[in-house]
């Protein structure tokens, strides 16, 4: 008894399981070729003004060789309608532009997938016009001098969707993207969406990357499909380059610009012998001068208060308020030098110290004036040297000049030029009392009366330049030609304005 009840219970349980299993098996979806189901994904799009229905089998393992397309409508109980151009097709889409023309209708498409003659699957769906995706038109973006031009190319076909003008159901939108900002443009279009349409984007920030997108926007049709962004770097002025290139190309095409290689004989430079163009004459009257340097030795005061050594007889150098002394520099024009060695010109370096106009003075001034390099500018006095003694001063540093032509006025009598010198920026060089130099120095004409002993203890002179810096004289540029150097034999009791016991020779330089 107990055993039979248990057995009955087991049998009932097993039966129940079988029933459930069978029910589940029966209710499970099966792909039957005779039972059209929702086995496809449908998409209807408006592409280049053509109504296209696309489908895709959900089961990708099913690979048919061809399809057959049919459809019906919901508003009337009509049978399936065959589309002539969509029967026995290998592509998975059908052009229904001239077939589906009622936008209020709901269409029921039916797609049969075959492999050979075998029907693999049937898939059906429901398409409402609101599912229509209007694809954007083609467009180009071109940058100009002061704007960006967006040219939209509408298809050449009639823009009719469901037998109605697209313009009645959609508007063209141009989006202007700048970083995170999007500016929306709805350009008014006269007429329908046919041909090319250009729109200008103004008020742009130079040297900025702009991106543009174009699409149709419709209240009735969804979703909105936007075109991929096209970006351009807005650089004002680029157009001029493009225009220039275009002009050159046009000239070339028209023959104004020839790229032929058959040149006329006159333009063939194969045997051309190049000849140098002679130097043009200088436009300004330039006088070449030689500069002679005269070193002075300053006599050291020996603490002798004798009248003979009194400096009253000595002519103190005149000083001007501007810091100029009467220490003159004499040079003479190279044209007056009879020797053939006068071939090079003296350099004309800048006279940075010559900030004030200077007036030359006559040579006949009795005041003793030290010889200074010509670059120091004009001096009240001037020196004269013979042709044998005057050397070229081409080795002088370039920064040494005779002074500016604007600020200096050089006057010469008998070919002599006198410059005023600002001692605060004077470069002097002291000749050493070298016997070898003395022979050469004797060739130099020196004013017998004007000698300044710039050395403290010795009578030696060194070929060096002296720089007057305040009360000191610093000696620089030890590369003066020897023949213009003063030997230093002529001593002078004349003292400078400063004290005479502060001369200091350091490494061939005299500091005062």
């Amino acid at each position, binding site marked *: 008894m107990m055993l039979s009840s248990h057995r009955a219970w087991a049998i009932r349980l097993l039966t129940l399981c079988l029933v459930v299993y069978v029910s589940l098996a029966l209710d499970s979806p099966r792909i039957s070729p005779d039972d059209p189901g929702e086995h496809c994904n449908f998409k209807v799009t408006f592409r280049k003004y053509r109504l296209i229905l696309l489908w895709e089998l959900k089961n990708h393992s099913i690979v048919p060789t061809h399809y057959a397309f049919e459809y019906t409508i919901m508003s009337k109980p009509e049978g399936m309608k065959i589309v002539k151009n969509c029967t026995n097709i290998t592509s998975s889409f059908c052009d229904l532009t001239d077939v589906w023309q009622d936008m209020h209708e709901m269409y029921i498409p039916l797609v049969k997938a075959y492999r050979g003659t075998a029907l693999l699957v049937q898939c059906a769906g*429901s398409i*409402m*016009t*609101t599912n229509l995706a209007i694809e954007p038109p083609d467009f180009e973006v071109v940058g100009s001098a002061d704007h960006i031009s967006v040219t939209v190319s509408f298809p050449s076909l009639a823009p009719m969707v469901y037998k109605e003008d697209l313009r009645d159901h959609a508007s063209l939108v141009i989006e202007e993207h700048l970083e995170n900002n999007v500016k929306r443009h709805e350009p008014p279009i006269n007429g329908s969406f046919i041909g090319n349409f250009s729109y200008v984007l103004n008020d742009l920030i130079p040297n900025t990357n702009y991106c543009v997108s174009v699409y149709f926007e419709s209240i009735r049709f969804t979703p909105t499909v936007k075109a991929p962004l096209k970006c351009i770097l807005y650089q004002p002025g680029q157009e001029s380059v493009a225009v220039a290139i275009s002009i050159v190309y046009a000239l070339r095409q028209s023959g104004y610009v020839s790229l032929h290689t058959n040149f006329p004989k006159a333009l063939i430079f194969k045997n051309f012998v190049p000849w140098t163009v002679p130097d043009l004459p200088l436009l300004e009257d330039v006088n070449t001068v030689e500069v002679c340097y005269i070193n002075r030795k300053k006599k050291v005061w020996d603490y002798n208060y004798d009248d003979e050594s009194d400096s009253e007889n000595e002519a103190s150098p005149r000083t001007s308020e501007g810091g100029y002394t009467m220490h003159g520099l004499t040079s003479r024009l190279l044209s007056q030098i009879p020797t053939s060695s006068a071939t090079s010109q003296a350099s004309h370096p800048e006279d940075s110290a010559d900030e004030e106009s200077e007036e030359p003075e006559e040579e006949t001034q009795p005041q003793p004036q030290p010889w200074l390099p010509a670059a120091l500018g004009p001096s009240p006095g001037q020196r004269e040297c013979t042709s044998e003694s005057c050397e070229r001063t081409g080795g002088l540093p370039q920064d040494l000049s005779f002074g500016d032509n604007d600020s200096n006025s050089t006057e010469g009598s008998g070919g002599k030029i006198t410059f005023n010198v600002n001692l605060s920026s004077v470069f002097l060089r002291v000749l050493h009392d070298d016997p070898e130099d003395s022979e050469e120095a004797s060739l130099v004409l020196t004013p017998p009366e004007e000698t300044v002993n710039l050395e403290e203890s010795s009578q030696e002179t060194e070929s060096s330049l002296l720089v007057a810096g305040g009360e000191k004289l610093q000696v620089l540029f030890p590369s003066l030609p020897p023949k213009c150097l003063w030997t230093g034999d002529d001593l002078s009791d004349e003292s400078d304005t400063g004290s005479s016991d502060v001369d200091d020779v350091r490494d061939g330089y005299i500091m005062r």
Partner: protein
Amino acid sequence: KENARLLISMSYPFPLRCLKDIKGFGLPQNILSYSWPVERNIKEAFYEISMQAFSIFSRHSPISIWKEEFLAQIKSGLSEQKEHLKRCLEEEKKQSKNMQVIQQSKLALRRYFQRIENYLKDKKYSYCAWKIVAVEIKRCFSYFLKFTELLRENQVSF
């Protein structure tokens, strides 16, 4: 437009097994022809459609097919639309005396919705019947939306 969107969501996607229950209800498109006065004619027709659709969804609520809050939303929209048009029409009625054309349009629409209601009754308010009715009412709204847009853009000739 909002009511039309709600109806679209009710009817889409359409179950293929219901294709066998498709029926044509004969929407009276001639009532939307360019007759005088067009504007009032459209308003009257729209009011009649709103009222009839609201009645169908209220008296025979397809709760088993759509969610209750969804039905409440569609009924609320239709009711608001109906009341708004009613007020507008009452004001115009005082000014206009030509009611003959308007009455014909209203009768056509009432017959149309009666056919829908009879269909539901015959199909015993089945799932497929409701689906088909939703599609049909949505189609009716779509027609009227089109003509209201034309009226707004002054493309209707008087």
